[in-house]
């Protein structure tokens, strides 16, 4: 490609950002990736670690001033990977730097990876992938349309609101003139529509943008629109109107001819500010957080104070608090709620999605979570292109709103480990791909734009890919019966419950990984059970072949085990990228055998010098190697050949494809 000046630079050092360790290797620049390949170390014949960085993941490249050892190049990624290269010759460094600058700022959608990414699927498979999520079916699942709510085609051609989807649901009594009138009174034409229907109480969660009320303006259609929403719910005489902004911001908006609903003009509404800060505050907050945790040799005080002053966890708490308020209003009081912020695509999306997640166990399953994102984020026009900086756009529009949502969900999974079908890795994987631009789902700012780009025809769907890897994202603690007993989650929002999400922000910092993980231990256990089960089946078949009917305590006649199960016991899982410790005991034992002469465990091997030990150090050599193998499989074509059970980490590693 014309932008690549130097496709390969040798003798590049990769420096760990928390310790003084470094590795040497070669840097390759391709049309889609920046690849670092560690030079084969002396003790192993195979090549070492590989790091693949997708250009779209790169948030910034910084060339630092020349030092005696070379020219440092610091790359910050949107998935919170930070890599620090030292290139020997300044000219090479500059070439890479300027090539990257061009490559990571695509101007046209067509330059995005999704348009060139080809996972070797035929058109039919791709089409099926896109059909996986069907929002019409989702509304049917909620029980809509029904006697109070109906489908409207008023936005069929994106005429009424160009950032809304075509298919919308409104109260039966909201006629077309009311809708159109209301939309004229709402910022960007985003009039109140249904996003979630709580069947048990017939209460609705609706969303919109702020009214153009200014200091005194009124709109009768808008008032009757709210009235219609209220009328559609016989359980409650009033509806809540949640303005998710801080009151001050809403007041300021009044001066610009926007603002919030006046309780005097709207009959039977209860108006409530929630106080979630805007996208600029969130962007700055995350920036501060990253600065704090990126500091080397951080003290406990600096860490805690820095964490607090970044405000990040406070903002997370604010979003969860808002969702809890919404949930209580709907499930306990049975009242309908209308949620808005300024434009109704950031905070509104967060609160509606999180509220639905608390109310409906379906959204806590893997498929359901995809539906939720598709509904509240993608279809209702969260501006992914702007917020995630997909094209070279306005930096003031960039903000980690969606990341924040994922983190809220993560904090909930920590409080309710049994309630979610997916584990943390699912959230991380989604986050990875929101920024990777590898799949079409998150491209563009709204449905209309996506149709213009013909994404369904020209790109692949992430959901199909994630679904095919479903087993990697399962939470071993998930208990469907828990959700039956607790359909509505009531999280505690004590500040104590909001903890720094280590695996998100330190996902790529090996030295920060825990030594043992409950998640992994349990996964191993489950896998063992599965193995035992398949062995059981194999044995039963064998007995049958021998002409004996096994004692019938077991489940229905097992299907003949596949060749896979019988001949290949599951391949040993590679060491974890994130979880650190060995995944199963076979490995532990193997290692113990290797280390028989002294009983130092794998944790100990790396800790020969005091300083590193004290700060907690990074992975051992053997671990690094398998990590390298992992990332080595980084081309999509191989996906098909993976064994039946793939490790979680493989998924994570391949994210950069």
């Amino acid at each position, binding site marked *: 490609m014309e932008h690549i000046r130097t496709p390969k630079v040798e003798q590049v050092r990769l420096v760990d950002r928390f310790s003084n360790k470094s590795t040497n290797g070669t840097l390759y620049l391709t049309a889609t990736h920046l690849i670092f390949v560690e030079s084969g170390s002396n003790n192993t014949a195979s090549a070492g670690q590989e790091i693949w960085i997708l250009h779209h993941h790169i948030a910034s490249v910084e060339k630092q001033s020349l030092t005696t050892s070379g020219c440092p190049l610091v790359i910050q990624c949107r998935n919170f990977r930070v890599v620090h290269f030292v290139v020997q010759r300044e000219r090479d460094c500059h070439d890479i730097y300027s090539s990257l600058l061009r490559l990571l700022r695509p101007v046209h959608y067509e330059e995005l990876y999704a348009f060139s990414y080809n996972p070797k699927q035929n058109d039919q498979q791709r089409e099926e992938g896109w059909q996986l999520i069907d929002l019409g079916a989702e509304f049917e699942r909620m029980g809509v349309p029904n006697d109070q709510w109906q489908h409207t085609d008023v936005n069929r051609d994106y005429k009424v609101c160009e950032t809304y989807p075509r298919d919308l649901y409104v109260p039966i009594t909201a006629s077309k003139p009311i809708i159109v009138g209301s939309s004229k009174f709402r910022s960007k034409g985003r009039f109140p529509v249904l996003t979630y229907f709580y069947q048990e109480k017939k209460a609705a969660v609706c969303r919109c943008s702020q009214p153009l009320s200014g200091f005194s303006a009124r709109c009768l259609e808008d008032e009757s629109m709210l009235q219609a929403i209220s009328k559609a719910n016989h359980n409650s005489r009033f509806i809540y109107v949640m303005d998710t902004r801080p009151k001050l911001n809403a007041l300021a908006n009044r001066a610009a001819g926007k603002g919030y609903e006046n309780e005097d003009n709207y009959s039977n509404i209860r108006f409530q500010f929630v106080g979630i800060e805007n996208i600029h505050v969130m962007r700055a907050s995350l920036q501060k957080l990253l600065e704090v945790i990126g500091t080397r040799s951080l*003290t406990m*005080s600096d*860490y805690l104070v820095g964490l607090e002053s970044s405000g990040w966890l406070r903002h997370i708490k604010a979003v969860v608090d808002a969702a809890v308020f919404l949930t209580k209003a709907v499930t306990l009081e049975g009242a309908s709620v209308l949620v808005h912020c300024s434009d109704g695509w950031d905070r509104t999306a967060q609160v509606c999605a999180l509220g639905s997640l608390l109310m409906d166990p379906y959204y806590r399953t893997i498929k359901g979570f995809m539906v939720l994102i598709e509904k509240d984020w993608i279809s209702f026009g969260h501006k992914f292109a702007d917020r995630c900086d997909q094209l070279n756009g306005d930096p003031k529009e960039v903000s980690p709103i969606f990341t924040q949502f994922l983190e809220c969900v993560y904090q909930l999974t920590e409080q309710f*480990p049994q309630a979610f079908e997916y584990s943390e890795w699912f959230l991380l994987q989604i986050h990875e791909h929101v920024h990777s631009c590898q799949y079409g789902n998150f491209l563009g700012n709204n449905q209309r734009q996506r149709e213009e780009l013909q994404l369904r025809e020209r790109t692949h769907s992430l959901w199909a890919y994630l679904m095919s890897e479903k087993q990697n994202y399962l939470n071993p603690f998930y208990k469907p019966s828990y959700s039956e007993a607790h359909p509505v989650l009531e999280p505690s929002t004590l500040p104590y419950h909001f903890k720094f999400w280590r695996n998100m922000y330190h996902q790529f910092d090996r030295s920060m990984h825990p030594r043992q993980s409950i998640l992994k231990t349990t996964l191993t256990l489950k896998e063992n059970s599965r193995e035992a089960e398949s062995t*059981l089946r194999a044995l039963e078949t064998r007995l049958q072949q021998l002409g004996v009917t096994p004692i019938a305590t077991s489940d229905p006649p097992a299907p003949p085990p596949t060749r896979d199960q019988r001949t290949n016991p599951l391949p040993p899982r590679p060491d974890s990228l994130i979880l650190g410790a060995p995944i199963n005991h076979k490995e532990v034992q193997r290692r113990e055998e290797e280390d028989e002469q002294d009983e130092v465990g794998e944790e100990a091997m790396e800790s020969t010098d005091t300083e590193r030990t*004290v700060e907690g150090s990074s992975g051992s050599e053997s671990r690094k190697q398998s990590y390298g193998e992992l990332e080595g499989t980084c081309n999509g074509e191989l996906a098909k050949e993976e064994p039946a059970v793939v490790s979680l980490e493989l998924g994570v590693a391949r994210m950069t494809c």
Partner: protein
Amino acid sequence: MEKSGSVDSLGSKPSSRQPSVDSLSSTSTSRSDRSAQAKPPSVLSSDSVSTSAEFSPELRVKPKATAKKAHRDSDKEEPQLLPNETVQDMAYDITYFCPFTGALRGTVMVTNYRLFFKSMDKDPAFMLDLPLGVVSRVEKIGNASNRVDSSYGVVCKDMRILRFSHKQVDDTLKKSIFEVLMKFAFPVSNGLQIFAFEYGQVFPENGWKVYDPISEYKRQGIPNESWRITKVNDHFELCDTYPSTLVVPVNIPDEDLKRVAAFRAKGRIPVLSWIHPESQATVTRCSQPMVGVNGKRSKEDEKYLQAIMDANAQSHKLFIFDARPSVNAAANKMKGGGYESEDAYQNAELVFLDIHNIHVMRESLRKIKDLVYPNIEDSHWLSNLESTHWLEHIKLILAGALRIADKVESGKTSVVVHCSDGWDRTAQLTSLSLLMLDGYYRTIRGFEVLLEKEWLSFGHRFQLRIGHGDKNHNDADRSPVFIQFIDCVWQLTRQFPAAFEFNEYFLVTILDHLYSCLFGTFLCNSEQQRLKEEIPKRTVSVWSYINSQLEEFTNPMYVNYSNQVLFPVVSLRHLELWSGYYIRWNPRMKPQEPIHQRHKELLAKRAELQKRVNELQREVTNRSASSSSERAGSPTRSITPVQTFV
């Protein structure tokens, strides 16, 4: 008097564990459920919401049933009393100001072991069951404007402050029940006996047999060619705060030990705590040398440390870890103490670990208490937490222990650990590094041995640090050193969830009985005192109770990592406040859901599958032996990984 504390009731305990709760209203359900079926040795008073909940998920799905049951039980007026527990006083119409649910009126009963409050205001009844040993002080809250009511605050050692009030007693001769309470809460100050001496429960296990120094040293391979067991302290003549059994280098005669003792604070000479099974590197502990301002030296002490170094052929160095900040160590010279100068001790390297003294720790934990009880402020949580410096102290202690473990394991070098007297920070450091180094101590029994050895026998002054039955709550000798150690252990279990045989409930139970004075284990300051008071004869050991129901305290995730050395990441990103202990009284502090339980289920399922596989396996082998034998290969192979696992 009701003799209820039978072993049978212990067995039924798991079923009466409270469910974890989602809202305030159901909290009281579980509370009353818990105490209505009062289980004798349970010390967790009924306010406890979070600690044990995670181990009993079966109850959470049927709160209604338990509520009913509790209600029925609550018709009974009194809790079930322990053996030899007698009611001392009762008072009606008392108000308890619960910080979480508001004021409640009810009855208070004081026995020689507990305070029991019960209110019928709520349905089901609300109960509060507090062992008197937990009481730190009772203060009358003056209220000049209101002469009708008298208010009392019961400040507890386990983070709580309970507030009660009742009508002014008309009869001036009659004492308030809280004055009665004070008498029994501080038996030592009032010339009474601590309840542990009266509690006569018999358990199937005898916890006093858990630790036998000779067999523990034998487990480590001692005596050997370099180390011997000495009886020089048999009658506590050498050092009255040390145990009678000590391990010293072979080539130092008992006579020299006495001279070394003269040079070490309180006569606490360096003795062996642990020896590496392969490298022979050792962890030894002692008190500070009496160097003083003049830089006194002791030939015997220098020779002694040389002997410790020589006992390890792998290394020609010796590391001396002084737990204190160097400033404090230097300041100790004024009082005759100090630290080893590197001139006097050839080949020794002195390292200061910067851990602060008992007063700093006491203050730090007090701030934690202010922070988390009764309610946590919504704003500034993290900076408030920072200002307590508690996690910073935890980090320093863990980092120190890690350095010690690393020197011994990776450096194959012997280490000497001391602080000032060698019974606080030294105990923390040696026991933590031993936990990292030796998988035996990570089992339940091993951990009990560790506590008996490093803390109890080596004279951590539990009586002074905790102040059992002593009303002098401002005593400067009190300090949460042991709690801090348990906190550090908890931090380790967080990082290595599969490496410890015991669970969080085990740690919490130990801390609860540290205060309860139900068991004799944590009474007195030293082995000598314990023998003099005949503690093992006259009281029950907490290990009797724990070892009689190990199931409750077992971590289902545990796999035997006994040959592994644990090197934790002491990064601040991995340390957190132990909410399961410090914040457990807050009903909003919801417990982690029972993932342990889920893990247990999976284990059971696997065991069952395994059994079935084995059965079929046998069947297949039998059959195929008679018919064609060569094809049986493949299924067998796929079993192996499962088998190695169990």
